[in-house]
């Protein structure tokens, strides 16, 4: 069973549907015990970093997620959920993340050429870096759907794919059993479903 962390951020309906479509049994929960018993855990999220990080802290889910990551549980952060995996974000100030992957989240503004629109929204091609099991069934150059204005940096060692948008933006990361996708696999057609399916195949013992 794959558990989606429910901490009051964003709409989880599409994500739930996409996991059902790849044959996974899904539960949407904020219950630490259910999360601990899940085979894999997904941290979703849309909206502002500060608000989301506060919600994780106020519910104690930040500690639960750190424990899960330490225990070897496959954990996937999507979009803002991926950004939360990092040490820090500079979105409207300076905010602490979960610190599961070394690196910071910074604005695209000022980094990419000014004629490019922000947010980076639409379908863009993945350029593979470090190999990752969740891309086992997709190809370099496959397109996925992005919507974001901030991106992860100083995390070179953990980057599994980038997307070209005036700069090489971090598209996905992995550190042992902790994975992150800046794009939305649940909105990326058959490519996205293949990524989710590969993730739901992962077992704790395979990756630690």
């Amino acid at each position, binding site marked *: 069973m794959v558990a989606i962390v429910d901490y009051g951020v964003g*709409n989880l309906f*599409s994500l739930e*549907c996409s996991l059902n479509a790849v044959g996974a049994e899904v539960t949407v929960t904020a219950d630490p015990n259910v999360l601990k018993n899940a085979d894999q855990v997904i941290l979703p999220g849309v909206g502002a970093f500060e608000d989301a990080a506060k919600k994780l802290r106020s519910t104690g889910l930040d500690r639960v997620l750190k424990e899960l990551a330490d225990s070897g549980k496959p954990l996937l952060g999507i979009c803002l959920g991926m950004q939360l995996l990092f040490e820090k974000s500079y979105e409207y100030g300076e905010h602490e993340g979960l610190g599961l992957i070394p690196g910071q989240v910074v604005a695209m503004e000022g980094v990419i050429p000014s004629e490019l*629109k922000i947010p980076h*929204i639409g379908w863009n091609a993945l350029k593979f870096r470090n190999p990752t099991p969740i891309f086992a069934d997709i190809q370099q150059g496959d*397109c996925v759907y992005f919507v974001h204005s901030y991106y992860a940096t100083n995390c070179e060692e953990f980057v599994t794919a980038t997307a070209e948008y005036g700069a090489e933006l971090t598209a996905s990361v992995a550190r042992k059993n902790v994975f992150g996708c800046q794009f939305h696999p*649940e909105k990326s057609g058959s490519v996205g479903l293949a990524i989710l399916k590969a993730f739901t195949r992962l077992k704790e013992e395979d990756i630690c």
Partner: protein
Amino acid sequence: MITKRIIPCLDVKNGRVVKGVNFEGLQDVSSPVELAKFYSGCGADELVFYDITASSDGRKLFTDILVETAKSVFIPLTVGGGINTLEDFDRVLKCGADKVSVNSGAIRNPDLVYQAAKLYGDQCVVLSADIKRVDGVFRVFAKGGRENTGMEAIEWIRRCVDNGAGEIVVNSIDTDGVKGGFDLPMLEAVCNAVNVPVIASGGAGKIGDFITLFQTLPKVDAGLAASIFHFGEVSIKDLKHQMALANIPTRE
């Protein structure tokens, strides 16, 4: 590089797609869910569902369809039609919509764009504007293009973007239905005024019209059309193949 998006638009009335379509291998051509699956399989980058139902019974049917679509189609879904309040945003977002398109609702209540963007994020709010030249000036029309609001279109769009509209759909009433190509001068004026994605609508009749659009105006992000896709005059697969051959960034 980000790819240029191709977006079919489905008009839905009382739970069925308006304008009969005829595709080989598609059993129920007026089922929005079946048509959505079909387009997604053909390479559509996004879908727009436009609810032209007036009754509340029809609204319920519409949200049921959204839920069904969200269960089987995994590309971005934009919903428009009858969006007048934050409750309307909430209703369709909960059923699987990723973005919500406002038109007359924003004209009646310009604060709607600001409120919705604050609550759901700019990326969620799409401003759709029906624009027509009146004495050489671009004017915004309301009520499905029947009523001249008197507002100058570029100013209106700029104001909505300042309020948080994350994307603009430019429907040219002047070229709509003519099938002679997109309204390039109108689109250029909008592209020069704002720095959010611009979606061209109205006027596409053939594959070449999309190629001309993206080559002439590289700042346009997407092309939207309805009947030419529904009637099979333009196949999305062929269109995207031709776009790729013309070196337009495309998701094939």
